[in-house]
């Protein structure tokens, strides 16, 4: 696999450079090569050849990053689980992937039911970074996102998918990382956006700067920009919403690239943020987990490139080898300037949701183009193409929302909220925009007021913290629309939040 070979070459070539800065401690590529070699040797020694899907507890340390590369060198996939997420949910993930082995750098591991590889206690071995041969169809990782039935939904990504992403980004002349770059890595490794924030710096020999768990992210990011003089930022737009009141105090001339993704970028804040970064190119990236992180971008510039729809910056054009298609409800292409669901095709498309034929039948379709069958993924995002060929984002087609960059199915929250409630009443989860422009979760309950402690205690054992509603309102009778559905828009007006 060419990109894995390139990772080996980069790690060897840049051995004196820094690879990671974690809580003010720097590690070199040589340190990294040692950790990777130790972990892969242990994986080769312990794990059966046929076992391909290996669990990875995503701590904020060098061993966790090294584990990803070690697994790839061994031709295996990582199945990341966040240590802050309830064990029950993480165990569900391992149950779905039939994972038997878990790499865990924690001092004491809670994964007693699995074969744990303690990545921080492996004895030293000789450096060995030669990748094993893999098939492009083999998996590189599986990420789980929120699903509607209360079960997390797995998105498997193959080595060929990742190769497609690397190929497309390398082909982009506007974006070139160099070994002297200092890059922000703000993402939890269970979030697919993290793939571009560790993979591209590693390929270029640049240094990544992580955010300690428990830190207030947006302030820590500013601290890194200021004190470590970061040059490359990759962020979700909600981060700059938090920093917005302090923009007049921010001037970061060292930043040369700032990529956004994972949510709508609004034009007013993009302009103001751009003023804080006088020497920076801004990219507004688009792409779902199902299409290996990025599928294309719009090159924003506060004076020359400001295309937007309803105040949301354009998502631009598809990247190399990627096809965009806007369709109606019958999967038929709609004309220019007409909104429809955006569908994606190309080498980065996932083989399909993990063991979920029903969902796959809904989310993928094939279409004949120039005598060939082309497979498309339906993103659930409403978009249109303008006459200049740029794509513009309109909104979500369903009840999936973004909370702090994470995709959340409102139905999953409702499922868990109702599961342990003594009162069998209707509950609706809603995304509510606060005055910073960020979405927060609200739970509307159709009832007289009652104690919700038990409901929340249960939810906290089932879902990560970003999925727990922050606001609760009791409404005696839910408003309904003409067709008898709960009127979610009107329900939101009950949440008067600051």
């Amino acid at each position, binding site marked *: 696999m060419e990109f894995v070979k390139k990772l080996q070459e980069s790690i060897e070539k840049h051995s004196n450079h820094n690879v990671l800065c974690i809580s003010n401690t720097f590690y070199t590529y040589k340190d990294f090569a040692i950790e990777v070699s130790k972990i892969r040797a242990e994986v080769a020694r312990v794990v059966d050849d046929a076992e391909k899907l290996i669990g990875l507890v995503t701590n904020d340390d060098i061993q966790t990053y090294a584990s990803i590369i070690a697994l790839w060198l061994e031709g295996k996939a990582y199945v990341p689980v966040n240590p802050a997420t309830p064990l029950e949910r993480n165990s569900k993930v391992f149950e779905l992937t039939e994972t038997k082995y878990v790499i865990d750098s924690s001092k004491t591991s809670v994964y007693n039911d699995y074969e744990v590889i303690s990545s921080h206690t492996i004895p030293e071995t000789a450096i060995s970074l030669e990748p094993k041969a893999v098939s492009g169809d083999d998996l590189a990782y599986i990420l789980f996102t929120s699903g509607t039935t209360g079960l997390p939904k797995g998105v498997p990504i193959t080595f060929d998918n990742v190769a497609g992403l690397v190929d497309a980004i390398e082909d982009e002349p506007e974006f070139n990382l160099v070994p002297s770059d200092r890059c922000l890595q703000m993402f939890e490794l269970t979030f697919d956006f993290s793939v571009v924030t560790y993979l591209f710096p590693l390929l270029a020999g640049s240094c990544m700067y992580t955010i300690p768990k428990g830190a*207030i992210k947006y*302030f820590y990011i500013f601290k890194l920009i200021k004190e470590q003089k970061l040059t490359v930022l990759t962020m979700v737009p909600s981060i700059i919403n938090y920093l917005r009141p*302090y923009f007049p105090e921010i001037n970061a001339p060292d930043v040369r690239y700032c990529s956004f993704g994972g949510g709508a970028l609004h034009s007013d804040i993009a302009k103001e943020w751009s003023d804080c970064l006088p020497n920076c190119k801004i990219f507004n990236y688009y792409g779902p987990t199902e299409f290996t992180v990025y599928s294309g971008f719009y090159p924003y510039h506060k004076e020359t490139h400001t295309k937007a729809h309803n105040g949301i910056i354009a998502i631009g054009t598809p990247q190399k080898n990627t096809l965009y298609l806007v369709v109606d409800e019958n999967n038929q292409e709609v004309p220019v300037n007409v909104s429809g669901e955006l569908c994606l095709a190309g080498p980065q498309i996932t083989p399909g949701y993990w063991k979920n034929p029903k969902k796959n039948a809904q989310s993928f379709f094939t279409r004949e183009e120039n005598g060939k069958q082309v497979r498309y993924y339906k993103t659930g995002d409403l978009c249109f193409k303008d006459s200049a060929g740029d794509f513009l984002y309109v909104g979500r087609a369903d009840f999936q929302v973004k909370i702090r960059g994470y995709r959340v199915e409102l139905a999953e929250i409702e499922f868990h909220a109702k599961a342990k409630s003594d009162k069998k009443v209707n509950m609706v989860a809603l995304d509510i925009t606060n005055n910073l422009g960020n979405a927060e979760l609200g739970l509307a309950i159709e009832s007289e007021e009652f104690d919700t402690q038990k409901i929340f205690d249960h939810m906290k054992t089932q879902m990560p913290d970003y999925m727990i509603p922050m606001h609760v309102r009791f409404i005696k009778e839910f408003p309904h629309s003409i067709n008898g559905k709960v009127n979610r828009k009107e329900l939101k007006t009950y949440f008067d939040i600051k």
Partner: protein
Amino acid sequence: MSREEILSKVREAFVTILEHDNFKLADETTADDVDGWESVTHMMIITEVEKTFDIKFKLMDLMNMNNIADLLNTIESEL
């Protein structure tokens, strides 16, 4: 204003935003120790504290604020 008075007002701000009082605030308390104190509520708490004391924090202060002692020190310096 004494440090105890400041702490007591800060506590009120936390209770207002977090909608519970199931926590202790001491110098060494961090976001990890208080249920519900995280990125979103942090900003709301900061705004509430600014209103209470009629002050405005600087980004430079906020980025180095790691525990309650840092918060109290910054408030004291602004009063």
